[in-house]
């Protein structure tokens, strides 16, 4: 693997720390979400019976985690879906204002996805 999801998360942190405009807030949001997305693919592959394909789609991943019997995996699915909604907004809805606060909130939520996945919900 040429790059890890942890490195994507660190990249999002750096990007947001240096961001001065809406373009960078949107890009940092997207990167923070993708970091969480890739962390969740690894998590789902590890925790779900039969694992998941590394090429799984965004909504399919959330649905797979939502179907898990463990509440902590369903909780992570909700958090990933929260971040995904804002990522889609950042990437596609250019006519809607996107703020630094939105980017910082997605990044902080993405960090919580990582922490929760690392401690396996405990």
């Amino acid at each position: 693997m040429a790059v890890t999801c942890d490195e994507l998360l660190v990249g999002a942190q750096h990007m947001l720390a240096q961001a001065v405009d809406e373009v960078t807030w949107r890009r940092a949001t997207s990167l923070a979400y993708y970091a969480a997305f890739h962390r969740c693919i690894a998590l789902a592959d590890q925790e779900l019976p039969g694992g998941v394909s590394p090429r799984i789609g965004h909504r399919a991943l959330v649905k797979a985690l939502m179907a898990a019997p463990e509440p902590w995996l369903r909780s992570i699915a909700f958090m990933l879906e929260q971040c995904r909604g804002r990522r889609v907004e950042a990437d596609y809805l250019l006519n809607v204002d996107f703020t630094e606060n939105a980017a910082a909130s997605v990044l902080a939520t993405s960090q919580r996805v990582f922490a929760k996945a690392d401690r396996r919900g405990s």
Partner: protein
Amino acid sequence: MAAPVPKTNELFKDLASLSAKDDFLLRRVENEAAKLMRVDASGGHAVLGAVAAIRGNLDRSVRHHELSVKLEDDVALWLNYCTSLAILDAAGKRLEVARRALAWHEDVDELLDVAVGAALESASFGDGQRFCDLWASRHGRHHAAAQAVGKLVRATDSGLFSSDGVRGVLEVAREVSRAAGVQRTEQGRILEPPDSPDAFLWTFQVAAPPAIAAQLNENLADELATRVDLLEDPGLRLVVMYEGAAAY
């Protein structure tokens, strides 16, 4: 010589920057409101209702505001009542009060705005649409929330999710922010992600930094993950998220 009697507006101005932690200052405003009672009982009760709201006491706040609007049917007093209910995050009660106020003051736009917001937050989307239609008939253009309200009405009418399900999620979200002592700063923003025409993202801003908003997001996700009823309806078709602000 008698002490000067404070004005209602001045007391409300004093209250604007206070929180439940400012006990000493809140008591001072209460004392001033007691003086105000002699010359303006409705105003005095409105101030005491607002103080009770800041302290988080719904029953006491409602009691004072009810006396206030009973003593004088003034639009400002009704708006004060609705503001207290917004502070208390009591959307259902706010909708009821806004409806009563509109029965007397149907031409007041601020009341109509309050009614639209309260209808949304209490998942009474049909009411929200009626208020938006009334606003549009008066102004010849759509209310700012009309599009979101219309989409939510269509979503509930088509069976995508139920109003009860949305109400349940919003109530869990309220409990999560209340438990953390974090206040929401606005009625929220509803978005339909372009890649998911059958899903909604409802974002609430909170008076707290992004790290606290993220904690709320996790707490909310933890609560919803154990609610079999809400996992079914609305499930992922309506997701609530908190957004913080660096200024806090």
